[in-house]
């Protein structure tokens, strides 16, 4: 063909397996031999070879990122089981079995959607952005936030809050131990935090919830989860795309930034291979996205469009393909209509570019003019680049020439991936050996409070605007002492007291010992955090960060964690509504610590009933609910003592009853403060309740309800799940105990006016005796001064 631009026909039909693989690698499309053969067969049927644009399209669509091959594939275990579609069997099946009437849209759109109040719904999405952030921390993290905000806009929701959960190597990691190409945790940390703040602050979306973890296992693989929550009127969830509708591309211009593949032109390959090995960096521009947000909400409110989606991984190729497929039609796109940052882009680059701040809007032709008006008023660029069609084909033109023409049925039915999972008995760690009890538990407590995993994250949180929009009713930093809270509460509607409750659970230190109980613990923690402030009717999001699933041991632990998700979700009767997996997190230092993030989104009918963790009134009794067991495997206590054994906390079916009891007590007003023991156990949780308030406490280990006999230090620092610490209103103890009937609970002490945290041993002798201001300063300044 003699065309006025560069386009290549790739000879698949004449290629043997070796050549097929070579093509896959050279084009950077990441497909395996079986997939390449499958494509070859398809084009044989079409009677021609594919173009580079077509191969790129297939590569993007079938990528792990876009298609979730592993989760939707077939897993064969080494003990002979076959799991057909892990995602459907364990994650999606929960919502199917529970079938809650408040789930509006799960797993099918850009974000999960659940009912809120007064005709409104909540949309949530959490994404991983590990790989880009490892290469370019600021840009990677910023575009992670930008991307997940677009997912929420992509279901017509107006963003009200951002979430960020980050895992780093130790900040004091020895420079000389860093392998080449791996950036120092401190550098990544600063850049990533700055990137998250930059995007949210500039867009005016408060960053209100998240977590930061440190572990050696993240030195080679930094983990960045970015989440966004939005609100939409239920009747404005516009999705009725029909053949004939226009395709409008709006927002930032399309550029070479964020192109994952390498160029195919073999003549240029050597020259460009150096360039290609460089980061495929996306460039953030939050102001562009803020303008997009305005326009999208206006278009939504005027009911002008028939569909919307964001441009994320795979760019235009994924956005148009997936939209056409979802609405059971086809599409024709003219690439020369796309507005470019860089005029010399090739057709395939335009097609797969992942430039940020772009959205695709589908609209009946008669509404295009009005939509363009709105976009113009908001100072946005836009172009009508094609339309949806009757035949189920994806047709791409450039300057009028066809550069791709693919059947959507073929494009969306890739061969199933088959993975092997090596199953090992997961005992949840091993029983701990006996070691001498440290004789100064006060200083152990202070060491724990200053451990980076427990210490206040204030120096980070204050660089995120968490007050913009004026909706933050319960803040990430509580009160004037900036104490810890378990969940954030947003009050998004001026006309209603109802709140959205956001919390998370993440237990990386358990993952190395027991992927199964790590996952179950993360769910328990996310739910408990939500309950502590008064959240209920939770929906969960699961985000997996794992190593290469083609390696049987990684696949084995992944399967375990996925199974645990089903087990734990059923205990709490709580559905998953969205999530994401990021696999292949491997570095010269080995695979990433297997990490599951659970995000819980609850609601509270009246934010005025919300409870915070700080003690309120001296003299009030303190209760512990739930049993403390000898479960210290992976605990912070064992980390600082360097004890390597121990059982990871488990989750028992009886845990399912606790949340509703606590919620009832919160609603009846008898709970003054509530906090969940997690890292550092009861001792740290109680210390936090003190330091947040300035009040002291006096507690007796002998009164703590135990699941088995154990030493006092283990009682104080055990991280058993399914426990709460509550301050009960002084004259309401009886009512409280009635509400807790049948559940292990006990009064362990009192809130005191004197600012001292006192803990007594079994024999009544003092174990811990620390001034609350010392606790406060230790906890608050540890990370700041690093």
């Amino acid at each position, binding site marked *: 063909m003699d065309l006025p631009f560069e386009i290549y026909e790739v000879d698949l039909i004449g290629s043997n397996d070796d050549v097929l693989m070579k093509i896959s690698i050279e084009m950077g499309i990441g497909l395996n031999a079986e997939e390449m053969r499958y494509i070859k067969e398809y084009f044989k049927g079409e009677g021609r070879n594919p173009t580079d644009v077509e191969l790129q399209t297939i590569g993007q669509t079938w990528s792990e990122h876009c298609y979730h091959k592993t989760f939707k594939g077939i897993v064969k275990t080494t003990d002979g089981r076959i799991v057909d579609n892990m995602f459907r069997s364990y994650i999606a099946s929960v919502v199917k079995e529970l079938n809650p009437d408040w789930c509006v849209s799960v797993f099918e759109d850009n974000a999960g959607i659940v009912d809120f109040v007064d005709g409104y719904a909540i949309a949530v999405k959490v994404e991983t952005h590990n790989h880009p952030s490892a290469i370019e921390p600021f840009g990677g993290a910023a575009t992670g936030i930008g991307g997940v905000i677009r997912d929420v806009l992509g279901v017509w929701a107006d963003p009200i809050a951002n979430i960020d959960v980050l895992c780093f190597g130790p900040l004091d990691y020895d420079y000389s131990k860093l392998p080449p190409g791996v950036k120092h945790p401190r550098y990544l940390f600063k850049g990533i935090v700055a990137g998250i703040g930059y995007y949210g602050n500039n867009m005016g979306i408060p960053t209100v919830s998240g977590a930061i973890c440190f572990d050696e296992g993240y030195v080679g693989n930094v983990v960045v989860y970015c989440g966004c929550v939005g609100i939409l009127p239920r009747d404005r969830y516009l999705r009725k795309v029909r053949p004939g509708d226009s395709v409008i591309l709006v927002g930032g211009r399309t550029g070479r930034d964020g192109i994952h593949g390498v160029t195919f032109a073999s003549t240029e390959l050597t020259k460009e291979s150096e360039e290609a090995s460089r980061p495929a960096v996306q460039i953030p521009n939050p102001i562009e996205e803020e303008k997009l947000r305005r326009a999208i909400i206006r278009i939504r409110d005027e009911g002008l469009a028939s569909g919307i989606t964001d441009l994320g991984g795979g760019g235009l190729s994924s956005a148009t393909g997936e939209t056409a497929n979802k609405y059971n039609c086809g599409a024709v796109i003219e690439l020369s209509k796309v507005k470019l940052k860089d005029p010399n882009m090739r057709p395939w680059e335009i097609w797969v570019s992942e430039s940020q701040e772009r959205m695709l809007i589908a609209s009946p032709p008669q509404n295009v003019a009005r939509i363009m008006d709105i976009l113009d008023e908001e100072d946005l660029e836009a172009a009508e680049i094609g339309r949806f069609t009757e035949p189920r084909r994806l047709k791409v033109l450039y300057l009028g020439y066809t550069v791709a023409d693919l059947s959507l049925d073929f494009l969306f039915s890739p061969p199933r991936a088959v993975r092997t999972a090596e199953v090992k008995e997961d005992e949840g760690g091993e029983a701990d050996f006996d070691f001498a009890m440290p004789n100064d538990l006060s200083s152990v407590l202070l060491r724990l409070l200053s451990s980076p995993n427990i210490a206040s994250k204030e120096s980070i949180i204050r660089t995120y605007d968490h007050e913009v929009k004026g909706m933050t009713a319960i*803040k990430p930093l509580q009160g004037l002492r900036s104490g810890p809270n378990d969940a954030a509460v947003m009050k998004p509607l001026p006309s209603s007291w109802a709140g959205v409750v956001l919390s998370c659970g993440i237990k990386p230190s358990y993952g190395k010992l027991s992927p199964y109980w790590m996952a179950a613990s993360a769910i328990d923690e996310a739910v408990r955090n939500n309950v502590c402030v008064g959240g209920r009717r939770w929906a969960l999001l699961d985000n997996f960060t794992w190593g290469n699933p083609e390696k049987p041991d990684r696949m084995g632990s992944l399967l375990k964690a996925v199974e645990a998700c089903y087990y734990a979700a059923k205990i709490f009767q709580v559905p998953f509504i969205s999530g994401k997996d990021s696999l292949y997190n491997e570095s010269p230092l080995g695979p990433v610590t297997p990490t599951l993030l659970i995000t819980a989104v609850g609601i509270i009918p009246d934010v005025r009933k*919300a409870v915070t963790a700080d003690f309120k009134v001296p003299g009030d009794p303190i209760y512990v609910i739930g049993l403390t067991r000898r479960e210290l495997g992976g605990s912070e206590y064992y980390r600082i003592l360097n004890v390597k054994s121990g059982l990871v906390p488990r989750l028992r079916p009886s845990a399912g009853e606790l949340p509703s009891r606590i919620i009832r007590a919160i609603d009846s007003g008898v709970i003054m403060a509530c906090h969940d023991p997690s890292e550092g156990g009861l001792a740290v949780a109680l210390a936090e309740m003190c330091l947040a308030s300035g009040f002291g406490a006096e507690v007796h280990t002998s009164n703590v309800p135990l699941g088995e006999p154990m030493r006092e230090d283990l009682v104080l620092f055990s991280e058993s799940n399914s426990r709460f610490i509550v301050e009960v209103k002084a004259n309401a103890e009886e009512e409280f105990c009635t509400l807790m009937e049948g559940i292990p609970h006990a009064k362990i002490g009192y809130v005191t006016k004197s600012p001292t945290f006192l803990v007594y041993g079994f024999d009544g002798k003092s174990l811990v005796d620390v001034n609350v201001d010392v606790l406060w300063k230790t906890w608050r300044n540890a990370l700041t001064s690093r």
Partner: protein
Amino acid sequence: MGRKKACILRVGGTNCDLETKVALDDLGLETEIIHMNHLLRGHRRLNDYSLLVIPGGFSYGDYVRAGAIWGKKMLSKFKKEIEEFIEEDKAVVGICNGFQVLVESGVLPGIDGSISEYPRATLATNSSAKYECRWIHLKYHQASSCRLLPDLDEDTVLRIPIGHGEGNFIVGEEVLEEIKREGLVVFTYCKPDGSPANGEYPYNPNGSMLDIAGICNSRGNVMGMMPHPERAYFGWQMPDWTSRGLQPYGDGSLVLKAIASYVERL
């Protein structure tokens, strides 16, 4: 006569308009959020409003300097209208980015009530080199020329949050003298007990000269401030209502209420 009208102006990158509207609506003003393009295209006229609010955000991406582009654009299009607005004693309030806009456009400090051709002050990058989102203590100066102030005890300490990366108020010596002479300092950062922050971080969160958090023009009807009263308008927005008890309104309401009642009296 109908209710007094408030215009909350916005451009690309403005993002604190909605919460500002919620508060002003609650105060009984008829509040509209207007894109500057609507004024340009003649869909709305500034003249029809009694209060102009320039809200917070990152107008035009804070390119060049925070507020610089918007400040200049606004003046190049509406200098006459804004001058008239000020001369008619209507109220102009800039919050955060809005304060930056008023300073960069030369509307503030506005000595002699006039708009200066070049900016006479700057809101430089915070001395902490970071974006700062925190609750600060604020003292307002009853003796200042500002006519938009609440009528409260001189030693009342307000708690209102800030959220900005460029809030370090700096002026040359000469301008500072004029500011003092004309009584243009409206708000200063202070310690919880009301004593001056004296530049001490984080009481003074950004390094501002004389702990300045907000100033007005000599006429007293244009005010700019870095803290966000609209984020502390309702009691449930305050940081410690769960321990101190829930009040219907927060400290920011005092500031906004005073502005609204000034406008009502016009």
